[in-house]
């Protein structure tokens, strides 16, 4: 027999089986019951075929001792029914009918699937031997079935891994691994390798995410940091902040919505989504802008930059309180390292009396708070099914709509004409820069989480200084470079927020096997044409 290489051990003395005796003669039933009991097995009796089938369905038996000649459903019928039933097929049947006086019946019974028969005059030794042999065979068959069930489970687990998405913890191989045989060892090796692949892929993915996230943080900082310098340039050309903001929002909205429309991704908004965009526009488009507008008139720009960088810590506090993201000491440390870097740079630029006796400083704290609220809002409530360009465009559009009455009422509307061509070009640039920075920030939050993204505030401050130097010929402190390094260390410590419960393998061994020529005849042909 082509049995698995590691055979389950078979007990020499089959013990404690449960046997069903089927005989219409009460004398025979009594005799068989006593005889089987003497061998140490449990016995139930059935007085006809119908009772036998009922008993077999109600309870699990290890063997059946079956009389053939019975009124009604006879032994042959019972055999036929059992062999047709998946659950009863493997229960061995020993026919109580002697070959000596009824060879025909015995032959027929064996043909129908009976395991063995009892001869005319059988003694306890023969009964024990025949019953024992049948029970052993059944036990072996059961173990074999169990073995193949395990092979099946392992194969299924392998298919899960190979199908792509998996987490080793979901493979449910523990009970297989706990079996101390060849298959158990194979399962252990398989799981070990799956674990290894999982860990490796996870580490790789984290590195990529850290790199992507860091680049995005820097990109957001660089693009956003451009805004103050451009605003100062615009101011020199006779614009005012509120009027400028309106134009910037309109252009940014037009820019983003055009891209979304071009990509065929303009969404239909439900009430929930609309509420999100309204809240976002209120926080980012109106409240942040008004606060900035008022605060910049009373707080020195350098001090304000320093205060804005507190955004990171605020996002961290929100994220921890709302359980939006993992809030570990390591991430907090990373935020503090980055903040220190920025703080050192800004301290060198303070003119001394900027920090004292100014109640506006407390109002200025609203600004990082509003940034933090925006970040958490994007991280937790962002409608993920809506295209990012469309999202940013909608927000900008809503901001512009809300801003317009205020601008007109406060008489800050900037009228663009042929004489203000320079300002118009600048406003166009600012609109695109504004859209890009919001888009990048939005992308960053979606990709790496709000806490990691909040570090863009550091990059923004430093980039603002660098842009100031490049565009406005402001002088750059050497300490800034130290700050950049500290921000990078901070990025490494904070790590992007990842949700890697499953990894995806992008290769398929089964599929590649199927791709090969299947028929043995065509294989050499293929080879010969290739060589």
């Amino acid at each position, binding site marked *: 027999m082509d049995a698995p290489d590691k055979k389950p051990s078979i007990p020499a003395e089959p013990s404690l089986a449960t046997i069903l005796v089927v005989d219409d003669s009460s004398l025979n039933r009594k005799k068989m019951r006593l005889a089987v009991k003497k061998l140490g097995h449990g016995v139930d009796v059935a007085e006809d075929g119908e009772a036998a089938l009922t008993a077999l369905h109600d309870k699990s038996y290890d063997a059946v001792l079956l009389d053939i*000649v019975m009124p009604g459903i006879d032994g042959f019928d019972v055999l036929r029914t059992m062999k047709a039933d998946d659950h009863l097929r493997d229960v061995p049947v020993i026919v109580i009918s002697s070959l000596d006086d009824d060879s025909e019946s015995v032959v027929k019974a064996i043909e129908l699937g009976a395991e063995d028969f009892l001869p005319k005059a059988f003694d306890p030794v023969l009964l024990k031997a025949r019953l024992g042999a049948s029970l052993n065979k059944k036990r072996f068959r059961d173990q074999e079935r169990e073995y193949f069930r395990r092979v099946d489970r392992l194969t299924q687990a392998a298919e899960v891994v190979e199908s792509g998405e998996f987490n080793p913890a979901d493979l449910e191989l523990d009970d297989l691994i706990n079996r101390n045989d060849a298959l158990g060892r194979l399962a252990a090796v398989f799981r070990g390798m799956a674990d290894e692949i999982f860990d490796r892929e996870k580490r790789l993915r984290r590195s990529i995410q850290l790199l992507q996230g860091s680049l995005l943080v820097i990109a957001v900082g660089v693009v956003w940091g451009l805004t103050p310098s451009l605003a100062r340039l615009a101011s020199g050309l006779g614009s005012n902040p509120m009027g400028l903001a309106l134009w910037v929002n309109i252009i940014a909205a037009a820019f983003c919505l055009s891209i979304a429309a071009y990509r065929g991704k303009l969404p239909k908004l439900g009430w929930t989504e609309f509420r999100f965009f309204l809240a976002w526009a209120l926080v980012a488009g109106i409240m942040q802008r008004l606060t900035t507008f008022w605060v910049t008139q009373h707080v020195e720009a350098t001090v304000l930059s320093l205060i804005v960088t507190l955004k990171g810590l605020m996002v961290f506090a929100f994220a921890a309180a709302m359980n939006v993201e993992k809030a570990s000491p390591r991430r907090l440390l990373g935020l503090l390292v980055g903040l220190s870097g920025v703080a050192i740079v800004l301290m060198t630029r303070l003119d001394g009396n900027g920090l004292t006796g100014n109640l506006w400083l407390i109002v200025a704290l609203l600004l990082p708070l509003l940034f933090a609220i925006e970040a958490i809002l994007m991280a937790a409530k962002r409608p993920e099914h809506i295209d990012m360009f469309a999202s940013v465009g909608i927000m900008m559009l809503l901001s512009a709509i809300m801003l317009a009455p205020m601008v007109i009422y406060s008489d800050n509307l900037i009228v663009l004409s042929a004489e203000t061509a320079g300002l118009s070009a600048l406003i166009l640039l600012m609109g695109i820069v504004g859209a890009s920075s919001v888009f990048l920030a939005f992308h960053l939050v979606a990709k790496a989480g709000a806490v990691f993204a909040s570090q863009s505030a550091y990059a923004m401050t430093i980039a603002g200084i660098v842009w100031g130097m490049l565009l406005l010929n402001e002088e750059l402190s050497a300490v800034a470079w130290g700050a950049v390094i500290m921000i990078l260390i901070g990025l490494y410590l904070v790590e992007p927020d990842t949700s890697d419960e499953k990894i995806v393998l992008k290769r398929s061994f089964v599929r590649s096997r199927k791709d090969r020529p299947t028929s043995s005849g065509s294989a050499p042909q293929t080879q010969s044409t290739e060589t």
Partner: protein
Amino acid sequence: MSTELIDKAALTRLLTLIGDDPDDLDELIDDYLEAAPNLARAILDAAEGGDIDAMRIAAHTLKSNARDLGATRVSEQAGAIETACKNGDVEAATVLASEIEAEAVAANEALSRLKDEGFGRA
């Protein structure tokens, strides 16, 4: 007489098979003493009623019960009836059936005596 009618070796084999308990053997003997005349009667009734299937099944049971208890001649006679029934030979079966009751009664007497003598309790 009894030695010829009852095969003591068969009884001993039965005793061993059921675990060497003479009380159990006595119980089986009592069951047989009660069942054998009934089975003989059933064979006769079936023969009179022409129910060959019932005759065959009753004969089969009596054959195997009698064999277990050592009533060799009853067993052989019952076996002959069973074979006749299987072959559809109603006439032969009926002739054989007419003799079975007397055989069964004789065997019962012998078996009963053996039981009273305390067979298996030596």
